[in-house]
């Protein structure tokens, strides 16, 4: 993590380019430290987050986490996630504005260190995804909070299929607040440093100056499928979602203009871990009725259950197949949706049966924005 100081502005640069800036435990610890310090520091008014190189951030360094767990205990992993989620919470309830410049890849944990901030600036080459279900995990880092608040049931779609969104799509659905063309991104950064202001209104108007307020969605954008997505992904269970998609596909088979979007969607659900799909859907549905803090506490329970591996070891299998061996052929267990019972799903949402384990303790905040509170 590099930090650039310019009077009252701090630019935090994720700098681990070989791993596409994937967040290691050290980076997360450093970010936590820095964010805590800046909150107290009256000399800091504005925080800019960006990534060095091609990517903003490709996510948490799960390969390292799996490695640690394999060598030691799953509790090493718990430590990683507890710090990462605490950082997410800090950002979501931060008193000072954070502008994230999302160039290139923004995935998983990368979304977690940006989407919770006040301003999310995307650009021509931004690629966003929450690909966890393909990895045997579930959209974490507070995703059950922000995905559930996207229009209609787009969040379920993005979270379950791991669909990739570009900058224009992110702006359209609300994941991003601004779209700034790639060539103007550094000018924007300079302007923000020069303005040296922490007033959200001023920052907003500066970003607006560089923004393209209406970037064109590509012709085949999945955002145009919102109606179909709403119809299918609003269903009660993963099985019902898939059967709604399948019957939609049948309905449209005669249609010559049908592209392969629907097939891709069905395929990606069939390839993902059945356990992941079920816990992810429930997580998003619960998250819709919760505040960001409660979402993170619940996700922490879930992620600890996943790492403990008592009910399913899909996370380790997914990492093996996609990150380590790279055979891209994970063998999920349970292998089918119908084998994942409601009881099994329930366990991911319950406190862990381990005497040393406890729920995530989020730091007390002086600032509690209304959206961070929810009572359920």
């Amino acid at each position, binding site marked *: 993590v590099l930090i650039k100081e310019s009077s009252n502005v701090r630019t935090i640069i994720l700098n681990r380019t070989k791993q596409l800036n994937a967040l290691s435990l050290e980076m997360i610890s450093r970010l936590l430290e820095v964010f805590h310090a800046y909150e107290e520091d009256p000399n800091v008014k504005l925080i800019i987050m960006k990534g060095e190189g091609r990517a903003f951030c490709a996510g948490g360094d799960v390969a390292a986490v799996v490695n640690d767990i394999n060598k030691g205990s799953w509790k090493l992993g718990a430590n990683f996630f507890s710090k990462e989620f605490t950082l997410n919470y800090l950002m979501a309830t931060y008193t000072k504005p954070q502008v994230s410049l999302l160039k290139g890849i923004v995935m998983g944990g990368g979304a977690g260190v940006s989407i919770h901030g006040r301003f999310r600036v995307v650009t021509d080459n931004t690629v966003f995804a929450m690909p966890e279900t393909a990895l045997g995990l579930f959209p974490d880092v507070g995703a059950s909070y922000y995905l559930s608040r996207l229009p209609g049931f787009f969040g379920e779609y993005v979270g379950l299929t791991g669909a990739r969104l570009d900058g224009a799509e992110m702006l359209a659905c609300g994941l991003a607040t601004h779209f700034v063309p790639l060539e103007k991104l550094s000018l924007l950064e300079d302007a923000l440093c020069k303005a040296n202001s922490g007033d959200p209104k001023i920052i907003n108007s500066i970003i607006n100056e560089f923004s393209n307020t209406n970037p064109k969605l590509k012709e085949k954008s999945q955002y145009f499928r919102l109606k179909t997505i709403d119809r299918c992904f609003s269903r009660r269970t993963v099985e019902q979602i898939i059967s709604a998609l399948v019957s939609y596909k049948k309905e449209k088979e005669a249609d010559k203009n049908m592209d392969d979007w629907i097939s891709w969607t069905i395929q990606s659900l069939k390839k993902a871990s059945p356990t992941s799909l079920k816990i992810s859907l429930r997580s998003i549905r619960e998250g819709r009725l919760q505040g960001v803090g409660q979402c993170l506490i619940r996700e922490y329970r879930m992620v600890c259950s996943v790492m403990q591996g008592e009910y399913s070891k899909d996370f380790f299998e997914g990492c093996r197949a996609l990150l380590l061996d790279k055979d891209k052929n994970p063998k999920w267990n349970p292998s089918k949706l119908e084998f994942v019972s409601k009881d099994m799903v329930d366990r991911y949402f319950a406190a862990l049966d381990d005497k040393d384990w406890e729920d995530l303790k989020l730091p007390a905040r002086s600032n509690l924005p209304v959206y961070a*509170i929810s009572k*359920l």
Partner: protein
Amino acid sequence: MGRVVDVTLIILLPIFPPYPATPITQLPTIRLLHTVKLNLHNRLLMDSSPPSSSPSSSTSMDRVNFRTQVLSRHLHHHPQTTDLLLPAPCLNYSPPELSNPPPNFDTKSLRKLLDGTSVEEIDYIFNLMIQSTLFCPRERGGKVFIAPDFNQSMEQQREMTVKRIEYLRDRGVFEGWFDKKGPEGDLWRFALAESVSVYDHSLGIKLGVHFFLWGGAIRFMGTKRHHDKWYKPTETYEVKGCFAMTELGHGSNVRGIETITRYDASTGEFIINTPCESAQKYWIGGAGNHATHTVVFSQLEINGVNEGVHAFIAQIRDENGNICPNVRIADCGHKIGLNGVDNGRIWFDNLRIPRENLLNSVADVSPDGQYLTEIKDPDQRFAAFLAPLTSGRVTIAASSMNTTKIGLAIAIRYSLSRRAFSIKPNEPEVLLLDYPSHQRRLLPLLAKTYALSFASNYLKMIYVNRTPQTIKTVHVVSSALKAVLTWHCMRTLQECREACGGQGIKTENHVGHLKSEYDVQLTFEGDNNVLMQQISKALLAEFLAAKKRNKPIRGLGLEHLNKPAPIIPTQLTSSTLRTTQFQTDIFCLRERDLLQRFVAEVSQLQAQGESKEHIFTVTYQTAEDLGRAFSDRLILQTYLDVEATVPAGSLKSVLGLMRSMYTTIVMEEDASFLRYGYLSTNNAAVVRKEVLNLCSELRPHALSLVSSLGIPDAFLAPIAFNWVEANAWSSI
């Protein structure tokens, strides 16, 4: 509104002396009071001038000077004033979560006690509603709330109700409505009906009429031929059903309805007729605009003999929505609430329907016109016929609790962020819920809501597990709880409305508006007062039957009558009041004594040769006291049963606290404890004091208890959250 302002000024007068007598020290409130003080000063000046038409020139000059000063202050910002005012905004919203301790018990576990196994089903419906623009999401104070637009016309509201139902139908929400069997099926149907009512009572009722009344009549009063024909089109809304029971002249007294049906053996048809104006079907939900079919309740006359009330299926509109021949329909008009439901009136002009349209679960008519039935006694036949429709009371009881939860969640969250008056000068104003009087208004209602919600769950469970042997219990318990819970709902909403002050008047803040939306619960499916008297009649019958058989009394929780009367300590203490032993004892004593009084009263009148009907009309006072005593004892019992399932710990202790609050408040508020001497005046004073103690002990849990109610934020109101921002100029 002028009068309201005057009152405010008068209240403010003794506390805030008029400008400029006070130095500007109260920074936190200065901006708020600025204009008030100026106006006040103006008023005082005017008041000091003589009322005659010739004011002295000096006074008049003063006024001119003063106005000039005021105007110039408005036009040219007085630097000193603005400096003083700007850095100290008057009122900052501070969320209750910041100032209240975090829950010391697991709020999820408590919610599970309320919503049981249905939590996920309920949350799913909430998800569907929150994510659709049809449910009118509005951003206020940084949060999104959903609520119908009550500013729409009656017709528009009705159309929106239909669109919302179609949206839910298209998501497959109603799939399997008639197929899901057993207790799980019933619980699933209840969860569905309740969760939509959390959004809007009209939506719940419109759905309830179609599925529970029309669909329930087909299911329970009909037989296989009706199931085969009507289930599928009902589930898909191809057929839109309604339920024509009530008439202009007869409501609670169903057996007195005047619609008459005869059989024509030559054509194999029934002929339904509305013989007079008082026989017009009235308040028929769905009939006004949309229903295509109805279940008609009517006297059945066969060969000149009246066989009593029976139910028939009749089509009233064709597939294009045109009213059928021999049917006349008119609207019930605009109502004080529930305008999203199209209540209508129906007249039948010798409408002919096929013989198969008689719902023949307990009685049938053969093609040649013979009346056939297994149950010879018309009273029993009627009871067996209507019994399954108790589901209506079950859902009413349950949704009245949800509405109560909404009201309390809003009022208590507001009272944890709204302040009024300082106790000492220069100190911040006091939070509403830190006033003992405000605690006394809201916290007992909160505890009672928990108690009544557990009772509502108990009712649900005995309904879904009903057997022919338990029908009587289900009937008595549903009558009792429907009445008690809906009364509690209305009372709570009124208290919440007042507790929110002027904000309670705004429709967007729900608490006031919900009163008119839910008032009808006290009347439909049985007038509450009639129901209370029915309980006492049933208890009397049980008591007399046991006596006649010379056997101990059993059922309805009345077994305690077989034991000796409990003894109440002569001097009550705070700790005695909190024991389950004492609480059970005094509730049982009251029920037992009132039942004995009622028995004595009735038998005395009987000895005087009075008729049964007359006796029940004159003994209503005791009957109603007894009805309440039965309900309260039942509610306490179900509470204790729930408590027993919770392991020792912080949740159990907060449940214990609320139970004590519930029992104590019942003793304090119901006059029968003093009237009949279950409490001495001394003990009544101890009870009253204990209410205060319990209030202050519950105060730290108030927020957590409200959070456990399970109503998502989106269904609450702007005043439950950042009401300062929601009302800011920038949000206009």
